[in-house]
């Protein structure tokens, strides 16, 4: 409990934390709203097949995709800022049991990331549906089947990406290295995969953790993709594996 309070003090006492969080939310919601407007305008020209695949919930949640890197970076900084500034040393003197230090960081950050995630998820959902309704395009409501799961899932996906950042930061101890890896994992691999032979591309689209995790904020199923919870579970398992690696390195490597 003490260590959690200490980690909250560390997190909340930095101006950069609040700035990053605010910019993340504002940017995500703005781009999300623009994207919803664009998709609504395109709807009248869409083919019948495209209209069948129209998923107003997912279409309103572009903000999640936009925010994923920013929240991952916030997670990276929770640990790498300690290494960059050297403050990891007084931190470890106060809490020499390193697993507890990491657990407290993860606990505080999970809380923050879930809150930011839900804020972005729900706000962008309501914004998006208002845009769709205004343009006379089919829209979703929270009461429809699977929709609430997708909206809440979008926030959870962001929290998972944030924790992935924290895990990568713990493994690599370097801000630049961890952010580089994060960008590669979330964006580059999937972009490059589309240029691969079809079977490999399909495999990446189905099983690559950030791709499978995205199923949690879709309502309309996609062919060849995992179901929402198994897909998100795969992402969470990978995040947990990275975190476990970070824990082992933190325990065994010199500070």
């Amino acid at each position, binding site marked *: 409990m*003490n*260590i959690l*309070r*200490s*980690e909250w*003090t*560390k997190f909340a*006492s*930095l*101006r*950069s934390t609040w700035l990053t969080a605010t910019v993340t939310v504002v940017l995500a919601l703005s781009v999300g709203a623009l994207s919803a407007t664009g998709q609504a305008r395109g709807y009248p020209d869409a083919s019948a097949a495209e209209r069948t695949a129209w998923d107003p919930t997912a279409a309103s949640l572009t903000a999640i995709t936009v925010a994923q890197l920013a929240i991952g970076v916030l997670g990276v900084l929770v640990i790498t*800022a*300690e290494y960059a*500034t*050297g*403050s*990891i*040393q*007084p*931190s*470890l*003197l*106060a*809490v*020499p*049991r390193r697993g507890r230090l990491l657990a407290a960081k993860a606990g505080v950050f999970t809380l923050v990331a879930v809150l930011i995630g839900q804020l972005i998820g729900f706000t962008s959902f309501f914004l998006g549906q208002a845009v769709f309704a205004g343009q006379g395009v089919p829209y979703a409501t929270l009461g429809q089947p699977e929709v609430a799961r997708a909206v809440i899932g979008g926030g959870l996906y962001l929290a998972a990406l944030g924790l992935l950042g924290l895990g990568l930061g713990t493994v690599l101890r370097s801000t630049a290295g961890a952010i580089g890896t994060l960008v590669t994992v979330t964006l580059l691999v999937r972009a490059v995969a589309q240029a691969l032979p079809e079977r490999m591309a399909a495999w990446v689209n189905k099983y690559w953790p950030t791709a499978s995790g995205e199923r949690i904020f879709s309502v309309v199923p996609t062919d060849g993709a995992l179901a929402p919870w198994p897909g998100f579970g795969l992402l969470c398992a990978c995040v947990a594996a990275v975190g476990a690696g970070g824990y082992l390195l933190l325990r*065994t490597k*010199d*500070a």
Partner: protein
Amino acid sequence: MSDTIIEAVGLTKRYGDTLAVDVLTFTVQPGRVTGFLGPNGAGKSTTMRLVLGLDAPTAGTVTVAGQRYADLARPLHTVGALLDARAVHPGRSAANHLLALAQAAGIARTRVDEVLGLVGLESIAGRRAGTFSLGMSQRLGIAAALLGGPPVVMFDEPVNGLDPEGIRWIRTLMRGLAAEGRTVLVSSHLMGEMALTAQHLLVIGRGRLLADSTVDEFLHRHGTENVLVRAGEQDGLARLLRRSGAHLGTDGDALLVQGLTATEIGKLAAADGIALAELTPRRDSLEDVFMTLTADAVEFGVSA
């Protein structure tokens, strides 16, 4: 007071090909300032990191109050350490930096204000640490070390970058802490500084223990005493002193006498009717003694 002793047994640390700490065995006792001396790269900081569990020893053990640092139930209440004054997030205020440490260690919030007052930073407690001068950072680091009121304190090169007033402040603080019965270990590569602050010395070079003694013993054992003499009739005096078994050297136009005390030289000269212009007993400074002792243990020495 075995609950305050720092004890290293066969402590060894290897980084790749470099043997930073080479089978060190020592204890640091309470109630006095122990100076931890060695040239840069001798392994002082590494040893301190091993004591604090930041790095793991390759071999051997080191304990504080009979336990490994990581096993201490209340680490900040047992050991206070300042290793690197700049190891603070520059965006965090001094007060919040200390508050986060206090919370982690279960120390009352009021103690933060107390230690800030103790080091004279209360007026800038809300300022971001990144705006601090090195001297202010050192004070903040010392405030952090004193948070838990620990019976053992360790400072790594605390006077680096301080102005004379700051140096005197730290010196007084360390002596005060020792006088209260605490164990005080302070590292430095400045021998003169240690002569003024420490009562006991641990000297290391290339990771090996070169001396473990009081400051006086250390000087006595490793230093040589000689006397500087000047006289109008210097050649006659030189013959006289040589006959009495002294070894003579010169220092400018003066004689440097080894093997006779100033009193003996004075008596001899008076008996022979030689008027002395100067008679000055000289003892090697701690600096000289240290240089001699560590001459072959300096990692990046300049060959003469």
